[in-house]
Structures are given as structure tokens and as C-alpha cells.
């Protein structure tokens, strides 16, 4: 039980969460292009960054840290983030009618998404002693963590007229699932007797757990699936641009031998490890260090069963206007309908300070943060482009007022191409 609660709250600490709202638009390549990109993002609108950092750094969480975190929690809280690593290659098509650009990418993505109530937080980090004699009610708590890799391939097609350009891009993905941990605890009542003689748990538990694939010995190959990305861009000569992106419309089928599946209404009355004979007393004491409640939970029927999960679909729209060669402004929104992550609205201001230096100011509200502001910088020299920044600088400036943290880095190399096609850049 303890493990489930901990995982429900924070999952694997190996998770390094990364993401950023500034995603790559696919319509801006006129040369062969190779890039490496990484990004992380983690946040909670309510939970303090200081606590999150200490947790993921593997520090000791003392009472002051826990109490401070608890004081900031709302009745319902979300916490989550994502990170990814990507190798991307784009190649302008020649002599192909249906496409102007081909692109391929290899991506590894981790997603954490959870919702929890403060009583769960308190139960996990402070224990149940203060709740003795009372009920702990847990209504909506869930934990979701997934890690998967994708091999994507796609193309884009540009349809131009005198005053406007339409770009449509499609890509298909082969998904390889590594981890999938999902626990949902709803309508749960946990009662600790005042004299600690019994713990009663009534819970509606739904758990999907993908463990290491022992049978195949391919440790991180536990599921397979496909996905689809759709991208559309509209550009006008008057400087108005509009982009829309539907990303990761797909699924992963998790193999049976790696799964542990449990979906049940469970009622447990735990009165201690039961032993029947005088001679068993020492071995019973010796078992006390194991998670006895978890042991009781294990007696409920969990089964190995293959199942299918959907990728965390994201929908993103962005409108921008280019005022002149040195200034552009935009606004958009991003939503993950399958996650607890809130819809995020963002705006950015782009300043081309020098032919080799572009600065972007970003402002956002939503996601796993509230209001955040950030600064991004794009440096170009020779054929290289380095894009680095953070959309959550505010939390580094004032950790008490702002939430969320993350950064991104992209290094790309542009290759000369003898048959360069003219594709308009943003």
C-alpha cells in the first residue's frame, strides 16, 4: 500500500521531466537538416518547486520541507511533466510531386501526470498516526507515468499561391513502450483505529503496471504500437501565420508477460500479520519490515493481462504576426486532453537583435504551472543553430510565487543542398 501511495504521488524518481511549449514547426526547412533536441519540464500549480527538486534530487525531506509543501496544496492538485530526447533529420524532396520535405526522427519520451489530494500527500509523507481514529477519504487520485520511444517518418507538402502558403505535414510513428504505470484510487476510505488495532481500507482501485520484461530479456521492450502526427500551417504575405498540430494520435499494446493488471473494489480489514502457532512468532516479527499492507493487497487478484493505452495526444495551435524583419509576436494554446495537465495559453515576442542572434520572450499560463515567463535565445553560426532557453525563468527568480521548471536545448546543423527549393521561413 505504501508503495502504491508513494508511486501515486511521485512515481519513479528516475523520471526527469522535460517539455516546453515551443515545439518545432515542420515547415521551416529548406536544407537538409540534422538536429539533436532535449527538453524537460516539471511542475505543479500548487506544489512547491523546492519540494519537487528535493524529491527528485534524492534529498532527505525533513518536516519543514514537507510542511511547507503541504501548506501550498489545494483541495485537488496536479503534478506532472515530461521530457524527451530527439534526433531529427529533414531532407528536402526533389522530383517528388506529393512532398516537398521528408523527415525522420527517433524520440524517447517520458510523461508523468498525476492528481492528488492533500490528505494523500500527508498520508505518504507524514504517516497515518495523526489520522488515527478518523477516516481518510481519497476521492480522486491517480498516477500515470509512461516511457516510450518512437521512430517517426513523414513528409510535408507546400501549396503556394501568390499571397498565401499552405503547408500540410503527416508523419507515422512506430512506438516501442518501455514503462507504463497507472494507478487510480477513487472513492477510498482509510480508517486507522484510534488504538491502532486495525486499519480498514475500502477502495476502488484500478492499476495497470508494466514491469520489466523478464521473459524476453529485452528489458525495455514491453509494448508496441503506432501513431500519427498531423500538421497544418497557413502563411500570408501580410505577415499573419497560423499553425495547427495534432501530435501522438496513437496507441501502445503492452505485452501480457510484462503486465500486472488489477481492477477491483477492494475492502481490507488489516489487523496485523496473522500467525497461528507459538513457534511462528519470531518469523512473524521478522516479516514486520516488509510492507505488510502491500502484502494484504497482493492477496487481491492481480493478473497478467495485455492491454492497450493511448499516447498522450497533444493539440496545439499558434497564431503569429511578423511585423518587420526584427520583430514578431505570437500566441497559442496547447492541450493534452488525456492528461490532467491544464490547457496552456502562451504568447511570445521574437526579437531579431542580430542576424545571428534571436531572443524570444515567452509568457504562459496553464499546463503544470500557473503563470510563467521565460527567455529563449537562438544563436546561429556558420551552419549551426543553437536554440536554448527556459519558459519558466520566473520560478528560478521567485520560487515561492511561481511554479514549474524546465529548459530546452536544440543543436542543429544545416547542410548545403544543390537543389535547394525555396520554402518560406517564418
Amino acid at each position, binding site marked *: 500500500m505504501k508503495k502504491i501511495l508513494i508511486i501515486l504521488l511521485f512515481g519513479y524518481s528516475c523520471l526527469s521531466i522535460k517539455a516546453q511549449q515551443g515545439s518545432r514547426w515542420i515547415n521551416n526547412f529548406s536544407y537538409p537538416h540534422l538536429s539533436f533536441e532535449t527538453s524537460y519540464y516539471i511542475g505543479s500549480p500548487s506544489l512547491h518547486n523546492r519540494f519537487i527538486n528535493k524529491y527528485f534530487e534524492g*534529498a532527505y525531506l525533513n518536516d519543514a520541507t514537507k510542511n511547507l509543501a503541504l501548506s501550498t496544496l489545494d483541495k485537488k492538485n496536479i503534478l506532472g511533466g515530461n521530457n524527451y530526447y530527439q534526433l531529427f533529420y529533414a531532407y528536402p524532396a526533389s522530383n517528388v510531386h506529393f512532398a516537398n520535405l521528408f523527415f525522420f526522427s527517433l524520440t524517447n519520451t517520458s510523461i508523468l501526470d498525476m492528481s492528488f489530494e492533500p490528505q494523500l500527500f500527508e498520508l505518504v509523507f507524514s504517516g*497515518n498516526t495523526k489520522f488515527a481514529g478518523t477516516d481518510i477519504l481519497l476521492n480522486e487520485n491517480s498516477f500515470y507515468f509512461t516511457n516510450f520511444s518512437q521512430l517517426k517518418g513523414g513528409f510535408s507538402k507546400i501549396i503556394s499561391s501568390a499571397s498565401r502558403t499552405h503547408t500540410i505535414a503527416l508523419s507515422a510513428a512506430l512506438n516501442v513502450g518501455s514503462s507504463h504505470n497507472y494507478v487510480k484510487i477513487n472513492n477510498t476510505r482509510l480508517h486507522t483505529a484510534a488504538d491502532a488495532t486495525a486499519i480498514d481500507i475500502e477502495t476502488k482501485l484500478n492499476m495497470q503496471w508494466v514491469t520489466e520484461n523478464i521473459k524476453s530479456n529485452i528489458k525495455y521492450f514491453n509494448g508496441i504500437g503506432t501513431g500519427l502526427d498531423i500538421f497544418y500551417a497557413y502563411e500570408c504575405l501580410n505577415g499573419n501565420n497560423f499553425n495547427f498540430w495534432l501530435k501522438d494520435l496513437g496507441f501502445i499494446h503492452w505485452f501480457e508477460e510484462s503486465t500486472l493488471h488489477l481492477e477491483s473494489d477492494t475492502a481490507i480489514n488489516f489487523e496485523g500479520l496473522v500467525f497461528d502457532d507459538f513457534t511462528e512468532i519470531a518469523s512473524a516479527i521478522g516479516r514486520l519490515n516488509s510492507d505488510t499492507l502491500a502484502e494484504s493487497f497482493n492477496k487481491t487478484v492481480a493478473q497478467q493481462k495485455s492491454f492497450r493505452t493511448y499516447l498522450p495526444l497533444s493539440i496545439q495551435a499558434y497564431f503569429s504576426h511578423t511585423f518587420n524583419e526584427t520583430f514578431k509576436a505570437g500566441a497559442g494554446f496547447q492541450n493534452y486532453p488525456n492528461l490532467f495537465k491544464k490547457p496552456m495559453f502562451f504568447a511570445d515576442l521574437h526579437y531579431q537583435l542580430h542576424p545571428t542572434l534571436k531572443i524570444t520572450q515567452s509568457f504562459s499560463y496553464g499546463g503544470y504551472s500557473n503563470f510563467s515567463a521565460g527567455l529563449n535565445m537562438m544563436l546561429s553560426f556558420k551552419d549551426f543553430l543553437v536554440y536554448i532557453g527556459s519558459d519558466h525563468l520566473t520560478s528560478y527568480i521567485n520560487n515561492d510565487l511561481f511554479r514549474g521548471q524546465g529548459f530546452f536545448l536544440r543543436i542543429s546543423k544545416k547542410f548545403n543542398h544543390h537543389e535547394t527549393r525555396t520554402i518560406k521561413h517564418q
Partner: protein
Amino acid sequence: MKTFRVFFLLFIIFFLKACFKEPQSPSWDTSVSAPLLKTSLGIHSLITDSLIHTDSASFVYLVYKNLLYQFAPDSLLKKPDTVSHVIYKIPFNAYFPPGQEIINKSEEKVYSFGKSQISTILLKKGLLKFNVSNTLEEAIKLNYHIPSATKNGTSLKFAALIPAAQNGGLNYTSTVDISGYKLNMKGASGLSTNTLNTHINAFINPSGDSTRITIHDKFQFTVQFEKLEMAFIKGFFEPVDINAKDATPVELFDLITSGSINFEQIQADILIENGYGVDLKLKINDISSYNERTQNEVALNAPILGQTINLIRATETGQKQKPVIPSYYFIDFSETNIKNMFENLPDKFYFDIEGQTNPMGNISGGNDFYYNGFGLNVFLNLNIPLSIKAHDLTLSENFDFSLNKNNSNSHITHGNFNLITDNGFPFDAEVQLYLYDADNTLHDSLMFNNLIAAAPLNQNNIAESSTKSIIDVPIPPQKMEKLYETHTIRIQIKFNTNHADYIKLYDFYKMDLQLTGDFNLFVTH
């Protein structure tokens, strides 16, 4: 090219990161209140079920049957060993053609069973072992026959081709299973005893070559019984003296390490069972109980001691399922000091028994018998109504113990534990746990300082309700560390009836125990 190197490096980083996400391990202290252990201990938890009997009112009796002495069949009759021993040699050198018979010998082997005269033996198990030593340069065909050993109407035969000697000699060994064979020991005339007929002949290998046998050559042949177990023996068994001065263990009180117990009553008797087909004369000189811990010995004081007991022979029924009806001799010890002997909480009983089998000689006309599974046994039977007084009666036992904090994501650092008891037994109890380290040195204890109070008795001296007691067990961090270093725990429970009358124990008495804790759990995730 350089660019590709950079991206190749990034590619490697990508996969390393994807495959090796090193977990960080945050840790915290959490305060947990939880039940830990629960059990219900009754009479059956303390005493082996097979010893417990109850009457219609659920009153508990301890029924104990202890084999005090057994007169083994081997003492009654010694077993035969060698069956045949033949040495073949010739006084001059000569050539022998194939098929030439070199041995043809019938023998009546008379065994010595002392003065016993055995007419029939039925073997339950056994082997006939052939040892052949041959220096002849040609194989020898050997036929061995025991006409008086039969099984299902067929006599025992053994045939073998003994290989020729190589490098001057050859040793050949073979065994034949003779389980189930009946040995007629009356000889060829049918009037003898202890006699077994055998026949052996040996030939130069009929399929071999002529061979030269010299005066130095030797063909030696030995047949022996091995691993014999008798199913049945008949004849006259010579009188054998019985002199038994020995001890037999008593395991009833193994858990008791100190204190005393008084029984209201003990019903005890000795039952002598004679399953042999011989008459017996016995004399019990002494029986005493010995407590090794206190080194206290209590001798039985009973009129039967030193008196001659004559026991007639068992009766043959002729039925295969139950071939013997033993004869019995019963000695009641209820009016003796047997109660004192058991209140001595003995580890063992010493006994001194003497006697003789067939003291009148061969009065059966050679019809003494032995059947496997039947013999002379002396049993001590006890029926102890568990109506007792206990004074500091202490039960102790050692248990292996391992509480490893390194193989779990959480471990208890300190806490306050409660032993909540609901005692339905009408006696007080004190529980202590002693902790021993890897060197088996006592290094700490968990002192349960409060008493588990006795259940109250009603006017009929029966405990109908239970008494609840809560015992605090504070375990500070230092003590908790010692618990993690503990390899053996000695559990000690001390009972006191604290009542003038004897307390009767009923089958429905039980003590519910629950260990709960308010403790600090150090969690590493």
C-alpha cells in the same frame, strides 16, 4: 565528418539516457500507527495435538503413551550368515575338456543358533551374496541350488558363468534378492533343525576350450546371507536373559525451563505386551524420573517393583492380517508416587528391568514363534487431567530471527509498541523476549513489564470471560538497532495460577494477542 561525430556522440547519449535512468532516492520519516501481529494461542498452540484429548465438557486431558523398553528380536535369536563355502583344488596338473564337471557337492549346512532349534524361517527381506575367486584360465559354469528355500513353490536356484582368470586371478561377486523366501531348516530328513540343504555343481565352460589346471589353481566359492529381516521364525528359542538398564526420553516438558507445576491427579500404568511365541519372566527393579536441569531424580515407589511377573506366550491365530494375539500384563501406578515423578518435570525415565524368555525351556515342542512387528514392549501410559497449579512455570524457546533493514524500502527506526492481550486462561502470564547477536551472546531484551492478567473464574472454577491487558513496549532507536543485529530470540512466558484450588484447563481457553505500534518509519524511495 566532424559534424557527424558530434551527432554520433549525441546519439549514444540519447540511448544511454533512454536505457539507464538512474533513480534518485529521496528519503523521509513518517509516523505510522498500525497493527503488526495477531494471533490466538490455545491449548493446541502449546501442546502437540495428538496428545490432547477432551471430554464432553471440553476438559483437557493429556494422553501420553511412551515406549519405555523394547526387547529386540535380534536379542531373541541370532541371524544365520554363511550358507556355503567350497574350495576346489586338484592334487596334480591336468587338462580338462569343455563341459568337464569339476564340483558336484550336496551339503547339509547346520547353523548354530545357540541352543535354539529353528525349523522354519520366512524372510521378509534379504540378499544372498556370491563371492567367487577363480584362478582357472577358462570360464566356469556354476549352478547353485537351495532346495529347502522356496518361494511360491519354487526352490532357490542361481546360475552364472564365472569368467576365466586374467592376470592370474579373478574375483566375481553377485547378489540375489531372497526376500519372501521360506527356509525349511529341517534338513533332507525333515527331522532336523537349524539345517539348510544346498547343492552346487561347476563345469568347465561347455562352450570354451580345454584348459590346464595346475596344483596351484583354486576355485573358491562362498555364499552368505546379507541384510536379513525375518518375517517369521518357528522352532524352539533357547532361554535368553533380559537385562535392561537404560533411559528413555520424555518430551512432554521440553519447553519448561523453570518453575513448578502440580497436577491434581495422574492416571498412570505400565502395560507389558508380549508378542513373542515364548513365555516370559520379568522383574521391574526400578523406574525413576530424572530432571537434567535440576538434576533431581524421583524413584517410583510401587509394590510391583522387584516382584516376578510371569507373562504367557502370544497366541498364533493363523490369520495373515493379524497372525498374533499378544499377551498383556497391566500394572496400575495410580496409587503410587507417579504424580511426584511427573511433577519433577522429567527429561527422561531410567528403568531397570530383568527377566528371561522361555524360563521353563522347550515346553512348546518346538513351536515357539516370532512374527515381524510383534515383540516384547513395555509401555508407560499416562492420562493427565489438566487440572493444575502453576508457580512461575516458565516456558522458553529459541527462534532464529532476522530483521534486515537493508533489503526493504522502509525500516522502523523507533517506536512505541503495545502488546494487547485478551487472556481467556485462568492464569497470569509474563512475556519476555531476549535478543541474542550473531555470536549467540545476549545483548538486549524486550522487557514486557506489565502482567497479562488471568481470566476470572466463575463459581464452577471455569473462566467464561477474558481479561484484557495492554503492555507497553517502548523501543528507542538504540534498542531498535540491536533488534536489527539480533539473530536469535528467546521467548519466555511465565505462568502463575495464583489460586488455592487446582485450575482446570478447557479446550476453549485461548489468549488473543495483538501487537500494535506507533512507530517511525524511515522511507527510502
